[in-house]
C-alpha cells in the first residue's frame, strides 16, 4: 500500500539514525583529530536532509517540480540574520516562530502566483521567483549585499534565564538539528498517510482526474507549497546558525538544483529517500573534491547516470531491490511511473 514500505526500510533508517546519533561516541576513535570536522559535516548533512525532505513533499508527493526552493532556504537564513540583535543572542522561542511565519507568508504569496501554472511553466516560474528574491537580497542595502552578513550569536534556548540547551556547543547543536530532522520526518510521514496525503497522491498521479472528481486541486497544492516552504526555511535557519553566515548565493538557483540532485540520488516521493540522498550527495561531493579539481564533471556525470539508470534512487533499490524485481509485483511498482509518464502530455493539453 502507498507510503507503506517493507520492514527493512524502517530497520535501515533506525540503524542509520543510531549510527549518526552515536557519532560523538565512535567518531573520535575513527576519525581522530578530524572528528570535530566530521561532526560539523554530519550536522550539515542533517540540515540538508531536512531541506531535501521538504522539497520531496512538492516534487515527490505532489509532483510539482520546483526549481526555486532555495528561495525559502535563503529566506530562513536571512530572517535569522536580520532579526538577530547585533550584540546579543536572540531567543529560539520567538526566532523559530518568526522564521516559520515569514516563510509561510512568502510561500503563500509566491504560491498563489506559481500554483496557477503547470509543468514546465511551474519549473520556470519558481526559478524566476527564486532569482527575484536573490536580486532583492543582493542589492538591498540592509541585507549586506553580495558579501552576505554575519550572525554573531546563535539563538539561545532558555527557560526563563537558565539555558536549556547550549547551542554553541557543537554536540548540542548537532542533536538539536537531528531532533528537528526526526520531527520533520515524522510530521511528513503522518501527513502523507493522512486523507490530505491521499489527495496529494491523487493530484500527483492525475490532477486532471481529481478535478473531474470535483477537487479544488490548486488549494491542496498551495497548502503543500506552504508546508514545504516553511520546512525549507527552518533548514535554512539552521544552516545559517551553523556557520553564523548568510549569503545571497543560498537563494541562487544552483542551490535549488543541488537539492534536486539530492532528491534524485535518494529517491523521491518516499520522504525517507531524500535523507539518504542528502548524505550520499555530500559524501560524493567530498570524495570528488578530494579526487580532482575538475570535480564538476564527475558530479555532472553522476547525476546523468542516476537519471538514466537509477531514476528511483537509493530508496528504489531498498524498497524494490533489482535482484528480486521478478519476485516483487513489478506492475504494482512500475504503474505509478507510467502514470507520471502520461502526465506531461495531459499538462501540455491544459497548458
Amino acid at each position, binding site marked *: 500500500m502507498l507510503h507503506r514500505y517493507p520492514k527493512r526500510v524502517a530497520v535501515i533508517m533506525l540503524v542509520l539514525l543510531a549510527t549518526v546519533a552515536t557519532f560523538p561516541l565512535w567518531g573520535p576513535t575513527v576519525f581522530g583529530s578530524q572528528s570535530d570536522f566530521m561532526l560539523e559535516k554530519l550536522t550539515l548533512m542533517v540540515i540538508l536532509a531536512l531541506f531535501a525532505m521538504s522539497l520531496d513533499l512538492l516534487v515527490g508527493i505532489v509532483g510539482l517540480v520546483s526549481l526555486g526552493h532555495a528561495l525559502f532556504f535563503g529566506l530562513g537564513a536571512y530572517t535569522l540574520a536580520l532579526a538577530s540583535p547585533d550584540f546579543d543572542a536572540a531567543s529560539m522561542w520567538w526566532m523559530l516562530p518568526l522564521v516559520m511565519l515569514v516563510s509561510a507568508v512568502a510561500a503563500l504569496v509566491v504560491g498563489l502566483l506559481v500554483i496557477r*501554472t503547470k509543468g514546465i511553466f511551474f519549473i520556470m*516560474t519558481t526559478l524566476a*521567483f527564486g532569482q527575484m528574491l536573490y*536580486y532583492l537580497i543582493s542589492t538591498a542595502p540592509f541585507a549586506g549585499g553580495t558579501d552576505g552578513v554575519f550572525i554573531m550569536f546563535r539563538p539561545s534556548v532558555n527557560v526563563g534565564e537558565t539555558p536549556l540547551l547550549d547551542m554553541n556547543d557543537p554536540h548540542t547543536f548537532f542533536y538539536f538539528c537531528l531532533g528537528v530532522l526526526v520531527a520533520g520526518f515524522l510530521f511528513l510521514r503522518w501527513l502523507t498517510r493522512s486523507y490530505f496525503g491521499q489527495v496529494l497522491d491523487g493530484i500527483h498521479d492525475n490532477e486532471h482526474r481529481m478535478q473531474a472528481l470535483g477537487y479544488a486541486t490548486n488549494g491542496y497544492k498551495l497548502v503543500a507549497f506552504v508546508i514545504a516552504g516553511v520546512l525549507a526555511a527552518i533548514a535554512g535557519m539552521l544552516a545559517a546558525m551553523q556557520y553564523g553566515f548568510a549569503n545571497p548565493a543560498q537563494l541562487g538557483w544552483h542551490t535549488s*538544483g543541488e537539492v534536486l540532485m539530492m532528491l534524485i540520488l535518494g529517491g523521491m516521493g518516499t520522504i525517507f529517500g531524500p535523507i539518504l540522498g542528502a548524505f550520499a550527495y555530500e559524501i560524493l561531493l567530498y570524495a570528488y573534491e578530494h579526487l580532482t579539481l575538475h570535480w564538476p564533471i564527475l558530479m555532472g556525470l553522476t547525476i546523468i547516470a542516476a537519471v538514466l539508470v537509477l531514476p528511483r534512487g537509493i530508496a528504489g533499490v531498498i524498497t524494490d531491490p533489482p535482484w528480486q524485481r521478478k519476485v516483487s509485483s513489478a506492475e504494482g511498482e512500475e504503474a505509478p511511473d507510467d502514470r507520471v*509518464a502520461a502526465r506531461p502530455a495531459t499538462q*501540455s493539453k491544459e497548458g
Partner: protein
Amino acid sequence: MDLAFFGVQLLNGLQYGLLLFLIASGLTLIFGIMGIINLAHGAMYMIGAYLVWDLTMRLGNFWLAIVIAIPIAVALGLVIERLFLDTLYKRDHLYQVLLTFGLILVINEAQRIIWGGDVHSVAIPAPFDASLQLTDNLQYSVYRLFVMGVCLALAGVIYWVIRHTRLGIIIRAGAVNRDMVEGLGINVRTLFTLIFSVGVALTAFAGMIAAPLTSITPGMGDSILITCFVVVVIGGIGSIKGAFWGAILIGMAETFGSVLIPSIASMVIYLIMAAVLLVKPRGLFA
C-alpha cells in the same frame, strides 16, 4: 529625456530584444514540441561563442568560422538528443531538469578544460566594422544593425515555416496538444531529433553572432538562461510569436528600466513576469 536620447534607447532595447528572441526561440521550440525543459540551453549559447572565437583564431575569418561552427552545433544537439533525452520524453520533467543540470556541470567544466578560464573576445568583422554617428558624441556600431537584421530575418523565416509549411502545422498542433502530433501519423522520433538540433543550433548561432558584441567568459550562458526563461514564460509556452514579443518587451524593459528606475533594475523583468502571470497564467500568447 530628450527625443534623440529616447530614440537611441529605443534602438538599444530593440537590438537587445531581438538577440534575446534568437536565444529564446530555440528554447520555446523545444518546450513547445517536445515538452522538454533544457537547462543546458545557456551552455549551448556559450559553446556557440567559444566555437566561433576558437575558429576565428584558427582561420582568421569570422564568417568562415560561423559556417563551420553551425554544423558542429547541430551535431552537438543531435548527439545530446540521441544520447540522453531519447529516454526522457515519457518521463517526468524532473528528470529532464536534473539531466540537463548535470549537462551544465559537464559542459561548463569541459569548456574550462578545452578553452581555459581566460576572458576572450572576437573582433567586429568586416564589412560591418564601421559605425554611425547617432548624436554629436555617440556612435553606433553597424554590426549591431547587422545583428538586428539577422535576427529579424530569422524571425521571419521561423514565422513563415510555422505559418505556411506542414511542419508548421505540426508544430502548432503540437504546442496545443502533443497527442495530436502522434495522431497525425508523423515519425515523432525524427521530428524531435530535428527540432532539438534546430533549437540548439539557433541558440549556438545566437552565441556566435553575439560574440563580437560581448566578452566570452566561462559560465556566460548561465545568466542569459534565466532571462530566456522569463521571456518564454511571458510569451507563452511553445509560441514563437510569444517568444518574439516577450523578448522585445524584456529588451525594452531592461533598457528603459535600467535608466528610469535603476533602484529595481535587476528585478524589473521578474516583476513584469509576475504581473503577466497574474493576468495570464499561461503567458501572453498561449
